[in-house]
């Protein structure tokens, strides 16, 4: 499933037409058609007007839960907080055992061990009913550290049992045109995701779209991250506003669609930050389904990075089950 570094490198050299240098990358990335922001935003808004009712809504709510990376990324995080998060991940709604589990918990690197312990036997691949542990790494959220530190950060998390690494790209390097540097760092982090047995932790590449600012930049950074071997492209750290937006996510999904058309590879997308309501999350499901196809609505190809979203979905779910509106006291805080 994970895209290995050798294949990715060969593909990248093939596509950019030579070594993966700043110049070659610039020529390649800047040759990609631009984005008209007004049209993109209108398309996203129009997808957002889809009316998802009854059976479709029930399916959507369950699927949203299954796609959530339940996240805590605070300086104040403690083992206790992580245990609480994991408990919520495993049993989102104690009043309804049919409630599915989330895909993963997402924590800082030093909390990975606590998360793994707390998950116990539930730790595993979400495509097979388990819950993964995702760790943010590479001097998250700013990414302002030496490569050595970033690699050590990554390797630490992997060795502690992280299944997924959410890295940040060097936005400074990207904005100043040093595409080669960004590329090389992603490749190096990917390499640091390699476990002792030769397998890889999944690599999610955070673009921090709020700092890239323009949709053209988001599109180029998406291509760059995929060229470098990222398994997922992720919008945001959640620490910078704006975080995930529907148009940004749509533009990334379009890259993933085009990449699939070009190479046959399926890359995942993770909007993160700012998605708090079921209504918003459903708009993302619609956008995924109508842009890349609904086969993307599985944990290894689409995730929501969120914390408060889960409880809103549970409230909506209770409403569908019971027929009346629920209240905040009927869902648990983690």
């Amino acid at each position, binding site marked *: 499933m994970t895209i290995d570094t050798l294949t990715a490198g060969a593909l990248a050299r093939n596509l950019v037409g030579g070594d993966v240098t700043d110049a070659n990358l610039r020529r390649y990335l800047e040759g990609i058609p631009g984005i008209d*922001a*007004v*049209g993109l935003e209108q398309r996203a808004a129009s997808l957002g007007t889809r009316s998802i009712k009854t059976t479709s809504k029930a399916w959507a709510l369950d699927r949203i839960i299954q796609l959530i990376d339940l996240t805590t990324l605070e300086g104040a995080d403690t083992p206790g907080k992580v245990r609480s998060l994991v408990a919520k991940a495993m049993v989102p709604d104690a009043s309804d055992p049919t409630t599915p589990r989330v895909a993963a918990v997402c924590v800082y690197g030093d909390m990975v061990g606590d998360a793994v312990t707390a998950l116990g036997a539930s730790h595993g691949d979400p495509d097979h009913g388990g819950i993964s542990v995702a760790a943010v790494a590479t001097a998250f959220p700013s990414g302002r550290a030496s490569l050595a530190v970033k690699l050590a950060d990554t390797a630490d998390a992997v060795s502690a049992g992280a299944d997924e690494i959410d890295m940040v790209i060097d936005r400074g390097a990207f904005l100043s045109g040093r595409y080669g540097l960004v590329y090389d760092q992603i490749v190096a982090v990917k390499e640091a995701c390699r476990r002792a047995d030769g397998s890889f932790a999944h690599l999610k590449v955070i673009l921090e779209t709020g700092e890239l*600012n*323009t949709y053209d930049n988001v599109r180029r950074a998406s291509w760059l991250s995929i060229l470098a071997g990222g398994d997922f492209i992720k919008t945001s750290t959640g620490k910078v506003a704006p975080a995930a937006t529907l148009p940004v996510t749509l533009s990334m999904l379009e890259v993933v669609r085009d990449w699939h058309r070009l190479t046959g590879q399926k890359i995942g997308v993770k909007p993160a930050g700012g998605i708090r309501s079921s209504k918003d999350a459903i708009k993302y499901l619609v956008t995924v389904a109508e842009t890349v196809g609904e086969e993307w609505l599985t944990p290894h190809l689409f995730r929501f990075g969120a914390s408060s979203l889960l409880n809103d979905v549970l409230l909506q779910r209770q409403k569908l089950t019971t027929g009346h509106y629920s209240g905040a006291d009927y869902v648990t805080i983690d």
Partner: protein
Amino acid sequence: MSHLAVQKTYKLYIGGAFPRSESGYTTEVLSASGTFLANAAKASRKDARDAVVAARSAVSKWSGATAYNRGQVLYRIAEVLEGRRAQFVAEIVASENVSAAAAGTQVDEAIDRWVWYAGWCDKYTQVSGNANPVAGPYFNISVPEPTGVVAVVAPQDSSLLGFVSALAPALVSGNTVVILASERFPLSAISFAEVLATSDVPGGVVNILTGSARDVAPWLASHADVNALDLVGANALDWISLEIAAADTLKRVLPPESGSDAAAPALARIQAFTETKTVWHTKSLI
């Protein structure tokens, strides 16, 4: 020692050249007292057709010129006309049987109209156009553009002033013109063609036909490659039929006017031969 006058052959003006009518026909132009002044070419439908072809082929260059440039070209017409004032006065006196002073006033007025319209070339767009505050992230602007080829029936009771008053406004925005001169007083129109030929007006921008408006106007009114029809001088014609013919291709039509104020100078005459084009473009920082 006396000088035997060299008389002028009054021909048509099409595509910057002075052809005779392809039909070979001419009509006698008489003075008010009935004396023979000249033979004028009697334009045929084929001459009208050639004139439209010439006018169409000149649209791109004339409408594509900068407004500043068109203004200078129209002003140049006034300059050249001023230089040949005496010739026009003499022709008007002979044709219309008016005093030299009255003829002089007519020529002066014609000159001034060129000056007035010349000044409009780079202004009418600003006065007629708009920036439109639409409710969305769009740059949105409306600008008037020339309609294309304008066929004009010039006022029939004036040698020069009526002709100029009908011709000049159509040229301002960049239209090209096929104009039927006054049937009774065609001499000034053809002399005016010499003014055009010696100023900087590109060939084909103005095409002048003399002869019978009754015979030729229907061919222009029904011509599919004519975009607009100015019937200002068509009072005596069956102008309603002309308007009906023009409706076949939805030409823009100006109705006849009468009296000495016909085709009086007005911004509206410029605007009548323009089309408003509205352009939208998306606008975004990101």
